């Protein structure tokens, strides 16, 4: 039976956005914290830590997010936890985003001239303050564009979480499409909603970049 596409259907799609947002926020926050840790370990003086971090990055960059979601989900049952898609999605998205953001931010940290860190060391600053006050603020300036690029991509990739049971934006659209048979209309709406979320991110990034640029070159 074919259902007409009405306000009801539109609302269903719109409300499915909440899962997309929940998943994206989890991935951003988890990946932000994890990514910083990965970037710092990856640039540390300890060879053991560096190698271990490289292994982590290679594994999570070298396998599809879809598989990571699967494995996190079924891995939990094997380990004897009750099946919880939200926790599984959080684990997989955090690990995935940490690997990518970690590698992006490592590049930004390494782009800060070594003389900066040396000058801070010579002044007696220890690792924590050297990073916090000298290296990371400079790395952050160059990190904005690639970071936002990745976050926008990540937001769109959260649709993969439908594989473990989330009826988020894309999945809801597929469901509605299968009963209304209005694919062009349905997916146009979905595309518009994704765009409405990603566009402000890019705008904010550009403003941030401009602000940073002003702060140094006044």
């Amino acid at each position, binding site marked *: 039976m074919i259902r007409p596409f009405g306000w009801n259907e539109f609302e269903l799609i719109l409300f499915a956005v909440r899962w997309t947002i929940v998943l994206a926020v989890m991935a951003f926050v988890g990946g932000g914290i994890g990514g910083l840790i990965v970037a710092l370990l990856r640039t540390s003086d300890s060879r053991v830590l560096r190698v271990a971090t490289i292994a982590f990055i290679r594994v999570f960059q070298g396998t599809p997010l879809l598989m990571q979601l699967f494995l996190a989900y079924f891995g939990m049952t094997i380990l004897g936890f009750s099946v919880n898609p939200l926790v599984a999605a959080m684990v997989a998205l955090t690990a995935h985003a940490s690997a990518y953001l970690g590698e992006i931010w490592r590049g930004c940290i390494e782009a800060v001239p070594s003389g900066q860190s040396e000058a*801070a060391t010579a*002044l007696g*600053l*220890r690792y924590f303050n050297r990073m916090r006050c000298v290296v990371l*603020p400079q790395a952050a300036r160059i990190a904005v564009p690639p970071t936002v690029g990745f976050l926008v991509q990540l937001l769109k990739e959260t649709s993969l979480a439908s594989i473990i049971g989330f009826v988020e934006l894309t999945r809801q659209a597929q469901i509605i499409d299968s009963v209304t048979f209005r694919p062009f209309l349905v997916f146009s709406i979905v595309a518009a909603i994704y765009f409405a979320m990603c566009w402000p991110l890019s705008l904010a990034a550009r403003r941030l970049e401009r602000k940073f640029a002003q*702060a*140094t*070159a006044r």
Partner: protein
Amino acid sequence: MANSSMNGKTDTPRRDVDVAVRMEGVDKWYGTFQALKDITLTVAGGERIVICGPSGSGKSTLIRCINQLEVIQKGRITVDGIELSGRKNIDAIRHEVGMVFQQFNLFPHMTVLQNCMLAPMKVRRASRAEAEATARRYLERVHIPEQAEKYPAQLSGGQQQRVAIARALCMNPKVMLFDEPTSALDPEMVKEVLDTMIDLANEGMTMLVVTHEMNFARSVADRVIFMDRGEIVEMAPPEEFFNNPTHERTRAFLGQIS
């Protein structure tokens, strides 16, 4: 001046004051390449040492070992009686040793004032007001108090290097290390930086200066060191160093640069 017959590698401080820096049998390797070979050097408090030598001879490496920007593989280094080993001592030594780099290495995201206040606040735990007062005092001494609110990129090279000197002085160091402080400067700015260093020398600061400014060496140095291939080849007071160097390699080098 007890020791007027200094020649060659004599390593006696000219003044009878406490030892500021002592290096004994220091070896430094980068992988399989030996950058420092059996360096022994004693620098008295208040003494001014100029280090020169061809590119790659280990001048930077030598002074960077003193505050452990480079780790040595053999030998001993003490600064102001503190042995350079163990994290506590290394921190303590870095508090006593200021360093000025060829490329200035000012923090570009901070104003001149913030550059000068950072270490006193984070390392010495000075209050903001104290740190600011100290910073302004030293900026005054290097003759750029009016640039305090600017960012490094807005200053000339000479001004930036003077800020770098003020920044190091804000930590109230006992020893200052200079690694080719004027080499990255346009010729017309060299003098203002050298003058600042001469002021510092006149105030009695212990200084180790890597430089090819031989006029500075002549007028300021107590001893001049010539390094080649990781070794101290010659070490003598400037009159002796320039007028009758004992080593062939020194003579060749002096011939090249003059």
